[in-house]
């Protein structure tokens, strides 16, 4: 068993990796090495890191288009993630997915879905398969507060509860569905209450406090593995950066963002554990990111002749 201090160090390191990795992505975006959409997780790192620490390697993870954090926390090689951003063959989706569609079979990481709430039904099916085959593993599905307004969310909650499936639903409530605030989207802004109305064990947790998230996730995973059905955790968090690289942030004030930054998950953890050796992690992570950039820069562009590969399996395995 790890001590709290050991765990805190691990959390800090993993959150810092996400923070610095994404800052590098922004730099590479402005240098036009990375294109398309780039949705940053900065500010929300405690959610992905806290939840991932509660999982086993055989569990499955599904996430959204804002999934760099989950992918890194799940242990996908940062080099392969960066190469994906660069659109290179060595990327974790071979350059076919980009920032929004990171996949990795070894990590059982099933993307990266860019249709809001679109992964929830997939999670239901994955968990149904595990239940039918009596496998002792769970499926974790991340989604935002915006997804909770979608029909697929409600259909999926109903099925998961009705069929008593081994799923952990993680709602990352960052208070905005792109530019529309929670109170303009939801008649009931306590989203856990919506899940609870489907007879799902549901609670809210401070999504800026990585220890609180990890604790809640551990309890939930324990319950799910015991066969007690799905659990819904609503993590109250905040996105420090714009929705994407095209967002002028007209819908929220700078002072609101600054207020939330006082509860930066890295800062909160450091305040509680002032002995964390930040410099050590900064140095380690700087090396990892440099390696990732070098790897991505040196990566291969897929030959255009292979354009139509991966549409059907037969062609994909040739």
């Amino acid at each position, binding site marked *: 068993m790890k001590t709290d201090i050991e765990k805190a160090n691990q959390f800090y390191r993993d959150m810092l990796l996400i923070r610095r990795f994404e800052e590098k992505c922004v730099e590479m975006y402005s240098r036009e090495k990375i294109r398309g959409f780039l949705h940053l997780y900065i500010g929300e790192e405690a959610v992905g890191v806290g939840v991932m620490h509660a999982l086993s390697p055989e569990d499955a993870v599904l996430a959204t288009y804002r999934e760099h954090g989950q992918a890194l926390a799940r242990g996908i090689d940062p080099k392969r993630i960066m190469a994906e951003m660069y659109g290179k063959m060595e990327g974790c989706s*071979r350059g076919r997915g980009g920032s929004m569609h990171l996949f*990795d079979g070894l990590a059982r990481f099933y*993307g990266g879905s860019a249709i809001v709430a679109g992964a*929830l039904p*997939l999670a239901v099916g994955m968990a149904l398969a595990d239940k039918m085959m009596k496998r002792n593993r769970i499926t974790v599905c991340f989604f935002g507060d915006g997804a909770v307004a979608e029909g697929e969310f409600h259909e999926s909650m109903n099925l998961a509860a009705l069929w008593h499936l081994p799923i952990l639903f993680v709602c990352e409530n960052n208070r905005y569905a792109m530019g529309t605030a929670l109170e303009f989207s939801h008649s009931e802004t306590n989203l856990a209450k919506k899940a609870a109305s489907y007879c799902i064990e549901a609670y809210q947790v401070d999504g800026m406090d990585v220890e609180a998230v990890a604790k809640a996730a551990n309890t939930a995973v324990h319950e799910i593995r015991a066969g007690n059905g799905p659990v819904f955790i609503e993590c109250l968090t905040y996105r420090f950066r714009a929705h994407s690289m095209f967002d002028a942030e007209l819908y929220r004030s700078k002072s609101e963002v600054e207020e939330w930054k006082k509860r930066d998950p890295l800062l909160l953890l450091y305040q509680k554990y002032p002995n964390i050796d930040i410099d050590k992690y900064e140095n380690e992570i700087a090396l990892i990111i440099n390696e990732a950039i070098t790897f991505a820069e040196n990566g291969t562009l897929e030959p255009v002749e292979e354009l139509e590969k991966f549409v059907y399996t037969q062609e*994909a395995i040739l």
Partner: protein
Amino acid sequence: MSTVITYREAVRQALREAMEKDERVFLMGEDVGRYGGSFAVSMGMLEQFGSERIIDTPLCESAFTGAGIGAALNGMRPIVEIMTVNFSLLALDQIMNNAATLLHMSGGQFNVPLVIRMATGGGKQLAAQHSHSLEGWFAHIPGLKVLTPAIVQDAYDMVLLALADPDPVLIFENSLLYNTKGELDTALTPLSIGKAQIHRSGKDISILTYGISVFKALEAAETLAREGIDAEVIDLRSLRPLDDEAIMTTVRKTHRVMIVDEGWKSGSISAEIMARINEQAFFELDAPMGRVCSAEVPFPYAKHLEDAALPRAETIAAMARKLMEEL
């Protein structure tokens, strides 16, 4: 050994055999269990396989279709039954954005061995929201395969072919065919996905079609034969992939072509087939191509209007006569 059974029984027999052979196969959809299937296809299967493998779902096409995709990703071989094609529109996001894309988006890592069956077609006075033929629409989407069994043998074979395929396969069963009878020989090697079949050989004009229109075309061909016109009737069987080779072969044989398609004409699969013939066999044609499609209206309830909206043996024969008079 061959037996004569209904189309419905042929689908059911294939489902049963697949589930007996492979524990990963299961059937999921609205009213597939206790009700026995809205077209009685899965009647008796709940009793045989239990509610864990014959799963009655709530009315949530998007979620249960998506759940089929998820289960397929996680090692199962699900068969999702969508009651009728019009309800598949509620699952279109899952079919197009997930089932059709996951293999590609994941760089070849995650295939989706999912079968989706649904009833299609008009002709039962069910009006504008229950009479669509949207199979040609789904054939637009790379990543999917689209099958349209017309004969009893295919009703059986195509379920098994689809289950053996590593990618998502959609099967469109015209609901008017469920009661039709035909021969089934389970010992036959099935004609593979993407292969068309000649149901009537002829030398004067080719009628390319699929699904229930195969029978309308065969009826028209008999009428035409009495008038001295020898029509070849080709069942496309699969709308994606299309059997270009079989299509061009018949064009080179008869030099006159018409297409019968119960979809609306604009942007239809018939338009796609004409375009391919234009690209690949234009100089083989002795006359402009023709087509008989559904009228460009939401389907009406009144019988005489609905009849007028759908391709019929008479309209098919009339089009053939017109094309024979060209040049």
